[in-house]
Each structure stands twice: as C-alpha cells, then as structure tokens.
C-alpha cells in the first residue's frame, strides 16, 4: 500500500514524501511519548510495563471501552469543528466552551419546562437542537461582533464570556430546575423520550455520533464547496486580499464565528441528551471548549481530519482512564503524559531534519532523471 501510495503520479514527489513522513512522524511521536512515560513510571511504579501496556491497549480491550473512545470523541468533534470555523477566519475566539455549556443548559431547562406530550418528542428534539445552536450563536457572536466592530481582543472577551456563561448556567440551574431530592447540583431528570437513542448496544454510543459525522461532512462541504466557505477561507488566509477583492470581511468574520458557535451549542445539547440523565455541569464545567482547540490544532485546522484527531484524543484519555482504573498510578500523572503525547504529535520540526534529507535526496534523483535525456 505504501509503495502504491508513493508511486501515485498525481502528486509531486516531495509532497508524497511529506505525507508518508507525516504518518511515520505521528507514530514515532506517540511511541516516544509512551517510552518517556515508561521511563518516568520506572521511578515509582512497581509495574511500569504493565501500566504502559494498559495505557496503549487498554482502550481496545473491550467493547465498552471502544465505546468510551467514541462517546468522548462526539463532543470533541463538535467543539473541534467549532474551532475550525474560528480558525478559518484566523480568530482565536474561545467562546466555544461557553456556547457548549449554555447549549446544554438552556435546552435542559426548556425540556424540563415544557410538559411532555405537548410536542412530539421527535419534533421536540429537533427544536432543542435548533435552540441549542442559536444559544451557541448568541454566545459566540459577542466576542465576534466586539472584535469586528470595535476591535476588542477576542481571546480575552471570549475567556471572560465563558466565565460569565458558567455562572449564568449555575444561576439558571439553581433557580429554575434544581432537583431538590438530590444532594448534588443537578437538574430534575431529563424526560426519557428525549434521550438520544443508543447506536451500539452495551455502550453509550448514541445518535450524536451520526450527527457529529454529518456535521463534519457538512463542514467539509461548506468549507470547500460553497461560496461562503470560499469566502471565509480567503478572509482567514489574507484579510487584506479579501477586502481588495470585494469580500465583506466583517460579515464573513462574524458569520464564520457564528457558525462555529452554532456547532458548539449544538454539541452541548447533544452531549447532554446523549450522555446525561440530568443537567449537572456545575460540579465541574466540561472542558470541551479547550479540548476543541487541541483537536483543531492537531487536525491542522482541516475539518476532514477532525474525527481522526478527536478519536486520537479520546483514545489517549480512555487509556488514561484505564490506567487509573487498573493500576495504582495517580490520575494526575496521566495528565502529564497526555500533555507530552499531544506536544510530540503536534511538533512540526520533530524529525524534520530526517525528512529534509529524504526530500533533498528525492529532488536530486529527480534532477538526475531530468538531465539524463537532455
């Protein structure tokens, strides 16, 4: 397969080497990170090899764990796509996190406020999706509009926005939908008929997976097959150029971030109705927003790669959970290893010298070939 791939005529030789090398690089990076983990574990663990083994193959040892990977990847895909849109116009709007929280919170509130049976559950869930999306739009548009109209730094305003959204959701939860019979900060149980159906029995892989994949597909199409996608890519890659060619920069900037917010809000709703029985994100706010950045950066900001990187991140985390479950290694240690894996995978210059040597050799061969007939 590799050979066939390398001999693909459509691409230039250098490009082919680059792609093949990229694959190898990611693998080596992961292996290296694991080796590093192994070395560190030697210091305080009785069974470092076992721990590393659990970390690597643990996530594949049974169906439910594989399910865990997929379940975790669903919200990551949504927030990753959200960040793809933010990045596409070169804005570092982090409001995806606030949108995600609010998307889940507001729809839970609505689902609990409207008595069952008034609206058919099928319609209701679609309605909730739309509302969640709109909530996400509202959250993400604040930093977007402030940046576009008033040049307010979007990183700061979105971080502040996330905090405000977190406290707002806590306010809504405690004042309007708290379950008084439980001892934790949670809403009443969400109506059963609104729960997203499970796709794979014995796991929690729910309908959200299909929706997430559809969202990825739609994003890819929007990015590369629609005028809007073309416009935001132009705006994102060179704002001045966009202005000169008559593309309304501000409009597209805001629009892209709004679409991103929509996806994050939708993701929040899908996560709540897929994985939870109540709205209870107050004990610890989900970190899907920040994770979305990791996913999008690892995917090199390409929406088509989002499912891959979301699964990769979910896999690493599931591995960490397995280690936590089956060994004495503290969960915090795994956080450190996880960061190392992410850094090494993202490192662009890692092994770059080797790559350049290969490309140089390739170019020399090409040159030789070219000169022969002359």
């Amino acid at each position, binding site marked *: 397969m590799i050979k066939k791939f390398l001999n693909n005529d459509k691409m230039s030789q250098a490009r082919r080497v680059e792609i093949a090398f990229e694959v190898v690089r990611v693998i080596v990076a992961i292996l290296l990170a694991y080796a590093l983990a192994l070395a560190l574990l030697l210091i305080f663990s009785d069974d470092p090899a076992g721990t590393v083994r659990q970390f690597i193959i643990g996530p594949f040892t049974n169906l439910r764990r594989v399910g865990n990977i997929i379940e975790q990847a669903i919200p990551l895909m949504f927030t990753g796509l959200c960040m793809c849109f933010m990045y596409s116009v070169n804005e570092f709007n982090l409001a995806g996190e606030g949108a995600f929280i609010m998307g889940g919170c507001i729809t839970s509130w609505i689902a609990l406020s409207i008595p069952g049976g008034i609206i058919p559950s099928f319609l209701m869930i679609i309605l909730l999706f739309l509302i969640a999306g709109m909530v996400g739009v509202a959250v993400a548009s604040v930093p977007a509009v402030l940046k576009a109209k008033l040049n307010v730094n979007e990183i*700061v305003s979105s971080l502040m926005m996330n905090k*405000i959204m977190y406290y707002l959701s806590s306010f809504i939860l405690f004042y309007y939908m708290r379950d008084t019979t439980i001892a934790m900060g949670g809403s009443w149980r969400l109506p059963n008929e609104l729960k997203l159906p499970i796709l794979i029995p014995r796991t929690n892989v729910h309908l959200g997976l299909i929706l997430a994949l559809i969202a990825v597909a739609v994003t890819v199409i929007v990015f590369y097959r629609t005028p809007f996608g073309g416009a935001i890519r132009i705006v994102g890659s060179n704002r001045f150029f966009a202005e000169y060619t008559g593309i309304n920069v501000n409009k597209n900037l805001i629009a892209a971030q709004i679409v991103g917010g929509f996806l994050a809000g939708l993701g929040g709703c899908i996560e709540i109705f897929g994985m939870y029985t109540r709205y209870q994100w107050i004990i610890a706010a989900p970190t899907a927003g920040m994770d979305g950045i*990791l996913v999008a*950066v690892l995917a090199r900001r390409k929406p088509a790669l989002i499912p891959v990187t979301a699964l990769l991140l979910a896999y690493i985390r599931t591995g960490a959970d397995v280690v936590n479950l089956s060994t004495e290694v*503290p969960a915090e240690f795994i*956080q450190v290893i*996880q*960061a190392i894996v992410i850094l090494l995978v*993202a490192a662009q210059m*890692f092994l770059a010298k080797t790559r350049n040597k290969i490309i140089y050799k390739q170019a020399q061969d090409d040159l030789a070939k070219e000169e022969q007939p002359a």
Partner: protein
Amino acid sequence: MDLDWLVEFLFTIIRLSTPLIFAALGAVISRKAGVLNLALEGMMLVAALTGVVFSAITQSWIVGLLTAVLGSMLMATIISYCFLVIKTDLYLTCIATNMASIGGTVFVMFLLTGSKATTAEALRSMSIPRIDLPLIKDIPYIGDVLSGHNLLTYVSFAMVFFAWFLIYKTRIGLRMRAVGEAPEAVESVGISVPKIKYISFLLSGVFAGFGGAFMSMSYVTWFSRDMVAGRGFIGMSIMNIANASPVGSLGASFIFGGADATAKYLQLQNLPTDLVFMVPYAVTIIALTVISIVRIRREDRIVHGKSLRRKKATEKAAE
C-alpha cells in the same frame, strides 16, 4: 467608620492586585517579543509548588522564592523548546503545559506529602515577610493603605518599573521590541529571533515565578491544588486591556483587583452569588469595549469622512 472601611477596601485591592500585576507583567514582556503567553497559569502553579517545597526543606523563604522563580523559568524553557525548536503550535503548547502543570503539581505534591489537597499538613513552608514602610506608615489612612503589605507587593511595584526599564532602556528590551514588531529585521542583522523570544519567555517566567510565590508564600503559606485559579488568564487579559504597556498594566491590575474586591464586598450584601461572581469578568469586557470605543472615536474625529461614510452606509443598510 466609613473611612476605616475604605482604608481596608483599598488595602484589599492592593493585595488582590499583586499576583495579577506579576501575571500581567509576564504577559507584557512576552507580548513585546510577539509571543502570547497563555501558559502563565501553569508557570505560576509550578512556581507556587516549588517555592513551598524548597522553603520547607531549607527553612528559608529566600531560597523558596528563588526556587519558585527557577521552577517557573524551567516551565518557560520547556514551552520555549516546544514552540521554538520542535515547532509546536504556541497555543496548543501553552494549553498542554497548563494541563500538565495542573496534574503534575498535584502528582508531585502527592509523592512528597501523600496528600492531594494541600501541603499545609505535611510541610512547614516559610512565608515572605510583611514590610512596614518607614515614615509612610505614620501618615494617617494613607499609611494604612500603603504600608504593611507583603514584601512581594512592593516588589511587584518595583517590577513594573523594572519591566518598563527593561523594555525601553536596555539592549535586550530594544531587541525584544524589534522582534515583536519586525522579526525579519532583527534576523537580518544576525540576532537570533528564537533566542530573543526565548529570553522574553524566560523573563515572563521570572514574573510568573514571583506571582506564583506570592500565591503560596504570601497570600497563604502552603500549596493547594490548582491554587492559581485562573489568575494567569486574568493577567493576560490585563495585558490586553493595557495594550502591553507595563505601567498601564499596573493600572489595569488595580481595576481588576478593584472589581474583584467589590465583588467580595457585594457578596456580603447578599446579592445572588452567581451574578456577583460575574462582576470582574463583565467589568473586563465592558472596560475593553469602552476603551475601544474611545479609541475609535478619537480616530473618527480625525477622519471626518470615515464617520460620514459609515453613517451613510448604515443609513442605507437600514432602508
């Protein structure tokens, strides 16, 4: 009575602002070299832990403070290595190191003390002394506000000047500003841009180190899990509000400290807690917005045509 309350309130603002000043200066110094340091949070956390651990071992707050700064600089080195040498995405690096330091500090604390919550039970760490300012402390009211703070509070004020001096009066400052503005120009004369960025990051680490030390050796006298609690991010926001000026950061830190102190006192008035918690964040957004509006107004006043056209365009859109 009221005046006493005000004195206390102002004193609180200064105390609350201290770690923010350090964090903001850390953000400023790296921003000047064109790098946005999102990892202040992690740096401060590591500094807080190393300070506590080493001051407990040596029973000297000076050693603790120094090691705190060194710990933070070590983090800066790691981050710089990642994004300057092996070329990882800067934001990703910072987020990943924040993640690693939250986990890593708890892990190290667990190995050392057996507790995952705080070092207070197992380590007797030293605290940095409070200082009474001679003369000033005798001035009524003003003395009560300005004197009696922790040494690091005064250090933070000195650091503002130090940062300003460093940026605008020294060779490395000159180079850092140049790197931030036109890296290719600096490169063309043979100065290594990554090296300057690295140095600015290290300096950022120094400031963050002081901030972390303040958290664990002055504010309180132990390390506890995730004790920086978002102050690094707030420092970054302050830098933004102040447009990366060291002196401006001092002012913005006080605004933020003031908002925070106000929120604390508002809670005593028993307003809904969640809404009170939003105050500092809402204040930030509003402050940024107002500053931007003022800035744009000023420009518009110069370019009458611009506002004229913008007005016409909106009128047209309204139709």
